[in-house]
């Protein structure tokens, strides 16, 4: 299967989304509500592209729009560029402190709106990525609440959530860093709940909460291989895996030292 993006032909696989094919081939499409770890949400609309298909022109969210053989995609048509600018200028008003949005503003030469005032306290663009992450993890501690101008992300009854394991995924995945997560003296506080932090077995750095570890262990169930490796921070886990690989491949013979 082939699709045409900005006049060039690219191979694509059935079921893939336009964004996947574009990114794989280094074609730039800006996104806010997208994470490679999650299915597309089609909520920020920043990934919009122009699609010519069966003689029709459409403007679609490339993060969820599936490819079709022979489809023609434009990521930077006049229409798209104009709409993208408006979107970014609006997002800049909702999340005026966001470095990521500021970066996109510069990247796409967007003049900030001067006739509308930014809300200095608002950070969240309500993209829903945090909720999706929490859902996919199977914890379901947060959701969108209320509607319209009162819509927000929060926990049940706005109370510290029994379901929250303090993993911090929502805060890490948020494109505008709208979720407050603080760490001090071996504790992590998020969504008004405070967790103890565990140290990595190898390097001794704080890295996760006991609740998160337990969640992962339960999820993996019988398939959990080396329990001890769960107790390592990402860095040390990668290091151990790399060491194993190196030893297995007998790379020592090719490398002078392990710098």
């Amino acid at each position: 299967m082939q699709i045409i993006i900005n006049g060039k032909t690219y191979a694509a696989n059935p079921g893939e989304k336009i964004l996947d094919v574009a990114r794989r081939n280094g074609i730039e499409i800006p996104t806010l509500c997208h994470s490679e770890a999650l299915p597309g949400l089609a909520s920020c609309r920043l990934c919009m592209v122009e699609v010519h298909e069966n003689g029709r022109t459409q403007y679609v969210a490339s993060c969820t729009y599936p490819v079709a053989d022979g489809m023609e995609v434009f990521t930077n048509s006049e229409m798209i560029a104009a709409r993208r600018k408006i979107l970014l200028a609006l997002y800049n008003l909702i999340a005026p402190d966001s470095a990521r949005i500021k970066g996109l503003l510069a990247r796409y030469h967007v003049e900030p709106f001067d006739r509308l005032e930014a809300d200095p306290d608002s950070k969240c663009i309500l993209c829903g990525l945090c909720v999706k992450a929490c859902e996919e993890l199977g914890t379901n501690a947060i959701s969108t609440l209320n509607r319209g101008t009162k819509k927000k992300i929060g926990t049940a009854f706005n109370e510290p959530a029994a379901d929250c394991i303090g993993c911090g995924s929502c805060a890490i995945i948020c494109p505008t860093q709208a979720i407050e997560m603080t760490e001090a003296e071996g504790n992590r506080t998020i969504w008004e709940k405070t967790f103890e932090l565990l140290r990595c077995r190898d390097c001794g750095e704080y890295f996760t909460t006991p609740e998160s570890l337990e969640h992962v262990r339960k999820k993996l169930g019988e398939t959990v291989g080396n329990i001890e490796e769960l107790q390592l921070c990402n860095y040390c886990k990668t290091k151990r895996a790399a060491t194993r690989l190196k030893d297995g491949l007998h790379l020592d013979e090719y490398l002078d030292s392990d710098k």
Partner: protein
Amino acid sequence: MSEISQIKSETLKIAQKYLPERRFLLAILQDIQRHYNYLPAEAMKTVAQYLNVPLVKVCGMATFYKAFSLTPKGKYIIKVCDGTACHIKGSLNLLSEIETILGIEPGETTADGLFSLETVACIGACGLAPVAVINDEYHGNLTPASLRQILQQYQGGIEDAK
């Protein structure tokens, strides 16, 4: 029975009229709202358990629809229509009259728990504009004066009079 366990068992009775499937969440919440005139927190927890739906998703739905209230509502719910026709015919005057008499604004409930005030956007009775619905009773062609009289009837216990 404590109040909490009573809510739990009542809620369960309501919920069990439906299969424990997520698609019935809205319908069950509507029945609970009808039963209590609001959604008690304990009832929402019970439904979440019964349907095996995360509690926060139940909260999400409960806070999304205007038909639900998370705080107890008054015995009489006054819905003042503020659709185009009623608006032009003076629904705002009705609202300020209610505020003078009862001291509540839309979304609020009187301290004695007798009245809650809401506005709705067109109830489809434009011929009667301006209209207010009190529980299921329609009152049309209202003026602040006639509304005052009607409210007095409710305050005097209209149901006992019937």
